[in-house]
């Protein structure tokens, strides 16, 4: 009985195609070929095709300077900044499913996220990812500086980079308020208090009292840049919704746009820098 079964199994195996044959059948089938318009990328032609025919990979050039792709040169920090940004986008969207930006719900939604959502660590991934991104962007800037990669023709891409750095910090800052706990509220209070002192635009800033028409001060506590930022005199519910929209919509769109320009410029400026 057992012997018979064994023989049968052997027979089935003998008849069935080898793994190679299966691979071949898939790779040459219509479905596969409609997605990947090239064979396995182990020949020069197919390697070129692999990069050119894939919308994501074609952020890259087909070939790159050997010195430029080394880890010891770029530290992969620009790439990691981008990876973390993608990560934050995905976990951020997941968080948006659970979070309502109102003073009534915000805090308790975060509590619920921790207490009731299975595998609820996307808040952790999002928060630590954000911290890591700040560090990665600093380090990326550091390596670009230390390799002199801002020198012509890459000056402008450095400028874009500086804006990206500011944007990264703004993303972290606006996000910091959203848990709506004491930590959040007071860190943002400390940070936004500065705006009151903006020259000419904050009512406690130098020059603001000069901006008046017929003795009426135009820049006052209810009309200055601090008020515009917070939507009130203090960090309040109006601030929460402002920061939420900035954090989830406005700043990420600006960031993504600038990153597209940044990557495009890396290529237009002749790829990753190297000695002449």
């Amino acid at each position, binding site marked *: 009985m057992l012997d018979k079964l064994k023989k049968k199994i052997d027979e089935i195996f003998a008849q069935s195609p080898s793994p190679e044959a299966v691979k071949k059948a898939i790779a040459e089938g219509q479905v596969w070929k409609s997605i990947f318009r090239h064979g396995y990328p182990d020949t020069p032609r197919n*390697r070129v095709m*692999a*990069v050119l025919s894939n919308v994501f*990979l074609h952020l*890259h050039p087909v*070939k*790159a*300077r*050997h*010195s430029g*792709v080394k*880890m010891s040169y770029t*530290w992969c920090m620009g790439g990691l900044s981008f*990876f973390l940004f993608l*990560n934050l986008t995905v976990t951020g969207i997941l968080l948006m499913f659970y979070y309502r930006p109102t*003073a009534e719900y915000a805090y308790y939604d975060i*509590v619920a996220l*921790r207490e009731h959502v299975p595998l609820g660590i996307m*808040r*952790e*991934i999002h928060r*630590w990812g954000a*911290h890591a991104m700040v*560090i990665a962007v*600093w*380090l990326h800037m*550091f390596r670009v*500086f*230390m*390799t*002199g*990669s*801002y*020198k012509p023709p890459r*000056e402008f891409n*450095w400028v874009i980079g*500086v804006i990206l750095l*500011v944007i990264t910090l703004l993303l972290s800052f606006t996000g*910091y308020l959203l*848990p709506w*706990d004491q930590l959040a*509220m*007071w*860190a943002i209070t*400390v940070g936004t208090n*500065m705006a009151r*002192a*903006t*020259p000419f635009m*904050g009512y*406690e800033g*130098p*020059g*603001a*009292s*000069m901006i008046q028409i017929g003795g009426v001060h135009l820049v006052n506590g209810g009309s200055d840049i601090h008020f515009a930022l917070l939507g009130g005199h203090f960090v*309040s519910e109006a601030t929460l919704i402002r920061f939420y929209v900035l954090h989830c919509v406005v700043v990420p769109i600006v960031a993504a746009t600038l990153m597209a320009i940044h990557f495009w410029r890396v290529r237009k400026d002749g790829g990753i*820098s*190297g*000695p002449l």
Partner: protein
Amino acid sequence: MHYILDAIDFVLQPWSYFLFSVIAFWAMIKYREKWTEPAFAVKLLWGAIGAIVFSMVYSVHFREIASLPDNVPIFLMVFSVGFFTWLSFRQGVLNDRRIAQGQPPIEKETSDKKVYVWPDLVYIEFIATVVAGVVLLIWSLCLHAPLEQAATPAWTPNPSKAPWYFLGLQEMLVYYDPWLAGVVFPTLIIVGLMAIPYIDKNPKGAGYYTFNERKLAIIPFLFGFFILWVTLIFLGTFMRGPGWNFFGPYENWDLHKVVVLNNVNLSEYIWVRILGIGLPSNFLLREIWGFLAVGFYLIGLPPLLTKKIPLLQELLEKMGVVRYGILIFLFLSMAALPIKMVLRWLINLKYIVAIPEIFFNI
């Protein structure tokens, strides 16, 4: 043990902390050949780890602050900045040796060769992604994101701190008013960073690590990054307690610590203490000395320095007046922070120009 901790707390003051970091910075530049040796660097690493373990074990206070979830990334920051500083200096030192012998930098050996992005780059990116993803996942599994009590305007925590990456800016508030520390200086940092490629016209050192060929660019940049940014973050996190008072790293935060504030404005120094006249009532007249000082610093000092220092003269000739003017202005703005710090420590100077009537204090 607590004698050691107390001694460290006693020695560390804002001024000595700053002094030590400047000395460390100088030593880092000066002895780069030595500490970039891997064997030596490993010793430094053990030293740093040892110092932290020591602090964690013997100081409850330090342990408490260090293990606040939002402070944990500071260690990642400090160690990664340390490691990458080593990596860039190491490669720079090796290249400088090659260049001194008339050889091209090491990057040159492979820079003319082109490799296929698939697989040579894609696999590096893939591995980096996986490693970063796993690290992030483990970190997230092990450390909960902080969540304190629900926000309430009724109770202000003391100290109120910004997120750690802004603590360098918050620290500036000790020395300058918010319009400068919170608005003007950050703007100048951003503008200054953007201006770097247009100011640094040195054609050498593009596309490889080097120190010798770019000293004049690297030293100021790293001074800003390390001394005026990273170390201030560390100070703001570990040594600023209630009332933003300074505490040693192992000193308990005493809510009732009273620091005598006897800071004095420049106008009072001159009109009252030196001239013995008393403060004039017109504030423009009252602050005349401050205006003169600031005016001299920004307008008089640049030509003077340029005349006296041959190196600057050379720069002026190379760069042209406009670029050079911007460079000097940015330098002086950057130097304004340490200068005010030192003045505060030495003569308790509060404001150089003090016109609180219109919120114009420098």
